[in-house]
């Protein structure tokens, strides 16, 4: 009874601060009731050198080398990066540029592994069962070593979030089990099937950031998952201050900033991170991966992927090795012929359209949708003129005025667009979804953001060039003066003898290096 009352109060509290805007797209969660299955091994695996946000990795294996499952095959370069591991045992076939799930269609350096079918695992890491008494820094290093990045789709290196910073004490950990994208059910299945793993992962992270309070957020349409999580929670004695909160179904409830507001009534300031208001927000899949990395000593080589869409006869969730070719996975589900079919990487609201299925599953792959062209094009019919109906403003969870931003982006008025907070757009797609004129608003925003980013880069480059050029002019001036002074002194001592000296002597390497130092850090 008290629990019920508390829940009711929670629900009422929820109403008090719920994020602005939002939409209610059709759910299509057809794969929700089906148990997940392990994906049979493929013959080839492609591991791109960058599957996370941050700097790319560099290979540490050679072509022809044999590798085991879980073996590190690429090391991270730079702080904001996580390593890549072999998803199965086999031989390195080649290291070359290969296509990745990215709208540009460009490839990046990747390692291709030919599986040997034995799936032998490497056992170097020791399980840390006694994590309660382990230094958080060690656990954090384990999370980094295992290649963890946010599996919700943003793939931000997880270990960075698990930092212990005295300036920003974490008060609450939020476990994001919202999964507001239509069609996708992989987090839903994870919660149903691996509730204990997820809770253990949560406990580990709470230990790492030294907090006892956590919220598990689940949307109303996953009542069964909430029930399972509550039961699992009740069975544990170490998680008294962890609550399961059921939020009303509304897209984009799962967006980090919107979720934090819905749960705590606090906003993450623009340009700041959740940690700045004492919140740590992690996806359920990532949480389970933390558990596996710490207690099972397993690197991130597998994730849950939803295969669905109206062109898929047998939708479902698969536990897929990272690097598995998508064409193979679609083939497993009976989709061989891709004419008249559009494939999406991720959900329909924020996922990317792929040019072809010959790309691997990466760490951010939460779903693969195959849509019939006819139904797909419904979302992309001919753009009409904006009638300023304001539906986009109503739907925008960031309270922007999208239709004005579109005008600005379209006519390249980027300064104005920035002043209208273009960069606070989270690209959730709610505006495009409700637009009666079928304007691809998000596409315009991405164009605008890309152009502004490029202009910024050019500006930084121009600024650096200006400094280098000014430095060079100064040096020339200095040389000239030095030369003049020398001439003078020469004339004084040996009057008739005129030394022929070049206008300005060759640049010395030190000079250039000095100039180089001047601008280091300015250039990306």
């Amino acid at each position, binding site marked *: 009874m008290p629990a019920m009352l508390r829940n009711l109060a929670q629900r009422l509290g929820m109403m008090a601060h719920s994020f*602005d805007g939002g939409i209610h*797209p*059709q759910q299509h969660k057809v794969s929700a009731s089906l148990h997940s299955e392990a994906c049979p091994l493929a013959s080839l695996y492609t591991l791109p050198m960058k599957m996370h946000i941050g700097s790319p990795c560099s290979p540490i294996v050679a072509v022809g080398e044999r590798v085991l499952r879980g073996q590190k095959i690429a090391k991270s370069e730079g702080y904001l990066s996580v390593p890549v591991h072999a998803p199965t045992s086999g031989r390195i076939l080649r290291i070359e540029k290969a296509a990745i799930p990215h*709208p540009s*269609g460009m490839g990046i350096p990747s390692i291709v592994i030919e599986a040997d079918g034995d799936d032998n695992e490497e056992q170097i890491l020791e399980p840390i069962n006694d994590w309660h008494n382990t230094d958080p820094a060690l656990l954090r290093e384990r999370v980094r070593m295992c290649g963890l990045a946010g599996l919700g789709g943003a793939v931000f290196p997880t270990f960075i979030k698990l930092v212990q910073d005295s300036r920003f004490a974490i008060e609450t950990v939020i476990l994001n089990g919202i999964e507001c994208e*239509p069609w996708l059910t992989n987090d839903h299945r994870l919660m149903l099937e691996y509730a204990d793993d997820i809770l253990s992962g949560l406990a580990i992270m709470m230990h790492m950031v030294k907090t006892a309070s956590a919220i598990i957020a689940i949307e109303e349409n996953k009542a069964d998952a909430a029930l399972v999580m509550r039961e699992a929670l009740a069975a544990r004695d170490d998680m008294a201050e962890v609550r399961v909160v059921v939020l009303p179904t509304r897209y984009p409830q799962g967006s980090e*900033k*919107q979720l934090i*507001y819905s749960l705590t009534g606090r*906003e*993450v*300031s*623009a340009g*700041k991170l959740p940690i700045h208001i004492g919140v740590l927000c992690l996806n359920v899949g990532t949480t389970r991966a933390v558990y596996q990395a710490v207690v099972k000593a397993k690197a991130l080589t597998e994730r849950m992927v939803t295969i669905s869409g109206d062109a898929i006869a047998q939708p479902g969730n698969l536990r897929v090795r990272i690097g598995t070719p998508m064409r193979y996975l679609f083939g497993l589900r009976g989709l061989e012929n891709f004419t008249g079919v*559009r494939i*999406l990487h991720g959900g*329909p*609201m*924020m*996922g990317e*359209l*792929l*040019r072809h299925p010959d790309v691997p599953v990466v760490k951010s792959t939460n779903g693969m949708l195959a*849509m019939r062209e006819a139904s*797909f094009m*419904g*979302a*992309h*019919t001919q753009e*009409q*003129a*904006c*009638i*300023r*109906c*304001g539906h986009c*403003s*109503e739907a925008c*969870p*960031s*309270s922007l*005025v999208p*239709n*004005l931003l579109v005008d600005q982006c379209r006519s390249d008025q980027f300064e104005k667009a920035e*002043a*209208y*907070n273009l960069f*606070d757009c989270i*690209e959730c*797609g709610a505006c*495009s*979804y*409700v*637009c*009666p*004129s*079928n304007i*691809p608003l*998000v*596409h315009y925003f991405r164009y605008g953001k890309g152009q502004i980013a490029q202009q910024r880069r050019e500006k930084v480059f121009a600024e650096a060039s200006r400094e280098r050029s000014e430095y060079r002019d100064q040096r020339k001036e200095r040389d000239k003066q030095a030369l003049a002074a020398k001439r003078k002194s020469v004339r004084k001592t040996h009057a008739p003898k005129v030394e022929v000296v070049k206008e300005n002597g060759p640049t010395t390497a030190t000079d250039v290096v000095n100039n180089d130092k001047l601008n280091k850090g300015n250039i990306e």
Partner: protein
Amino acid sequence: MVVMLSSPHAHGGDSVRMMMLTVVLALMPATLVSVYLFGWLALLLILTCMLSCLLTEAICLKLMGKSLSTLLDNSAALTGLLLALTLPALTPWWMAVVGSVFAIVLGKQVYGGLGYNIFNPALSARVILLISFPLQMTTWIAPMSINMPPLNLYDFSTCLTLFFTGVDGLKLSLDAISMASPLGHVKTEWTLGIPVAEALNHYQYSYLDAFLGKETGSIGETSVLALLLGGIFLLARHSITWHIPFSYLATVAVMAAIFSAIHPDHFAPPMFHLFAGGLILCAFFMATDPVSSPVTPIGQIVFGIGCGILTWSIRSFGGYPEGAMFSVLLMNCAVPLIDHYCRPRVYGHESGRKR
């Protein structure tokens, strides 16, 4: 080769066509009342306006080499209907045609078509007509709802003659068949120094009649009830939000209440203002025209308040008896600035604007 499109790859299914159609549907009660009051005359006027708007739009599109499929977005038909509903029943056919052409060409197409017009097309045409033909635009025929109407407007041939040849065709004097509108009446009497209450008495003004729409006026603006029904339909269908109609009407009511309390002889009571003239029509159908009104909620409230103040001021002090149309046009001018300054606070920012 797949054409690259950005997410989202799902759509809610709303369309401009449906939105316009919703507004046309919402105007049906008012249209029916207009036909009840002014018989065939109203029907002729509405059809003329709608057809000439559609035809003008078609010609414009053709001239600009655009696809005629834009005609199907229903916006031209809506403009025609709205224009017709703001005209007096005695408007001759050619004036209706001129108005429609103005509405489509000057009101909309010169700006680049639907979505880019700055002024409400129907209202700008209405104001052009009012200024060009002040007499015809302020002469109101007696409706069929009064006792013993001087003309049977349900008679088709009478209406046809009236519509195409004017009063001369019926060999009648204008005075015999026309009567003053409540607003015009009060304004005339007021300039003669007669107190408002007395003027209303002279007119035998009844609030109930005004609410149901039994007195005269522009064909579609008389019945508050019918217009409210349409307005509620629009609100329920989410075609408009409450901000503009509410702030507009509330401002007029508050201004009228304050001033009529201070000086009841000079200023009409709030109920009179709310029920009179084209206020309700403007508040629900003209001021809420999405293209020419602000997009943000705060902006819409500012817009409504501005319209309210202007309407009340023009009615109370101005040379014209009705100020609703002018006030909406005037506020249309301010929309870009309102949009700029009334943006909502963005998530994670202290205030809406960056600088």
